[in-house]
């Protein structure tokens, strides 16, 4: 099989996360592929809607759950618009997994703080579930998640689950003006809430994903809290076509995001030219 050939996958379930974001649960049509397909938290895949093309998203489900693969996407371009037209029972393509992953081995035995904004929760959710499925391996787990408004929060059912767990500290926030009368969470931008939550930096890894502006203002807060750049992880999303280090699209300076990323530490990020 040549490297550009996707596997076929069936859409088992659709979840409307927000008015423009959906999660698809996929299973491989070929049982052998399903058997062999393994990945690590943070890796991405190329999803095909035949006729529209391929697009790149992280795998949003954790590798600890092997029966299916999930992806969450926002309808913005040609392929995601086509993906929105896909129904339960339809077939799409999937190839991967590609790229590097979050160093869960290193995080084991430590505290983990997850910070996400908007659809940026997708790659983080994969790690969160991975950690929660092996909860005994990690110390404190803190999740700080924000979106523009209440209706822009994704994975609402899971947020409820996390909120209900005693072994997870969950902070939910919406931007000022994005709250509803029933809203019980925080109101404020993610960096502000991180400051308020003030997770201890001692023996702690941070996983930060979200819009560039959120990351830009969150990193200094983490620094102030004492997080070394080497312990802060994030993912980059550059435009990609092949995912295989060939097509030349995702270069940032000497880095191929598809091969050297998508997971980077804040230290690595700072060394890169600002071309992302």
């Amino acid at each position, binding site marked *: 099989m040549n490297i550009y050939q996707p596997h076929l996958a069936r859409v088992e379930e659709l979840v*409307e996360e927000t008015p423009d974001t959906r999660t698809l649960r996929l299973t491989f049509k070929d049982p052998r592929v399903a058997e062999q397909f393994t990945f690590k938290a943070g890796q991405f895949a190329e999803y095909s809607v035949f006729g529209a093309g391929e697009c790149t998203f992280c795998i949003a489900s954790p590798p600890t759950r092997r029966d299916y693969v999930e992806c969450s996407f926002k309808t913005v371009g040609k392929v995601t618009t086509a993906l929105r037209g896909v129904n339960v029972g339809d077939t799409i393509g999937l190839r991967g997994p590609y790229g590097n992953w979050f160093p869960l081995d290193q995080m084991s035995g430590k505290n983990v703080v997850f910070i996400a904004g908007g659809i940026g929760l997708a790659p983080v959710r994969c790690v969160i579930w991975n950690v929660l499925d092996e909860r005994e391996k990690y110390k404190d787990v803190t999740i700080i998640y924000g979106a523009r408004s209440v209706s822009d929060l994704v*994975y*609402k059912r899971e947020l409820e689950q996390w909120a209900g767990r005693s072994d997870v500290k969950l902070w939910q926030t919406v931007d000022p003006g994005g709250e509803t009368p029933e809203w019980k969470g925080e109101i404020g931008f993610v960096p502000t809430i991180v400051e308020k939550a003030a997770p201890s930096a001692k023996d702690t890894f941070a996983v930060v994903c979200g819009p560039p502006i959120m990351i830009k203002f969150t990193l200094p807060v983490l620094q102030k809290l004492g997080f070394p750049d080497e312990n802060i992880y994030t993912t980059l999303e550059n435009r990609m076509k092949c995912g295989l280090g060939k097509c030349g699209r995702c270069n940032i300076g000497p880095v191929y995001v598809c091969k050297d990323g998508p997971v980077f530490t804040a230290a690595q990020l700072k060394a890169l030219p600002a071309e992302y």
Partner: protein
Amino acid sequence: MSTATTAQQKPQAEPLADPGLKPGVAEGFEPKIIAFVCNWCTYTGADLAGTSRIQMAPNVRMIRLPCTGRIDPLFVIKAFERGADGVIVSGCHPADCHYAVGNYHARRRFAIFRDLLEFLGIEPDRLTFSWVSASEGKKWSEVVNDATQRVKKLGPFAAYQSLVDK
């Protein structure tokens, strides 16, 4: 608020062409002709032809647009790309345009387009232009029959359809 759903049925596109179309003049060849027509005159005229039970060639698939002024030459190219053997563009007679001047602009554009396609080697008979008013059901049937006859004579548009190996 999250809802698991089987989602609504997406509308199925009307097939433009049989993907299995084979080039080469076939016995009893029935051309596929795409008609881009304006909403106000020709479409209504064609409707009249139908309700008046006027017999005409069944080879034409119609695509209704607001005005001939909205018909981009790209549409014609797309029709050929997707397997059309001929194309009809039809709208309101001069001075009858619902939008006053859309058909005058279209007339200029298509005059150039037609000459250009001819220069590139596309037989002009594959392209038919007409003015058909809402009351000209009869004329529409003649345009359809005439275009069908001329495209039949030319055979399938194998040259275009073989531009990329299927």
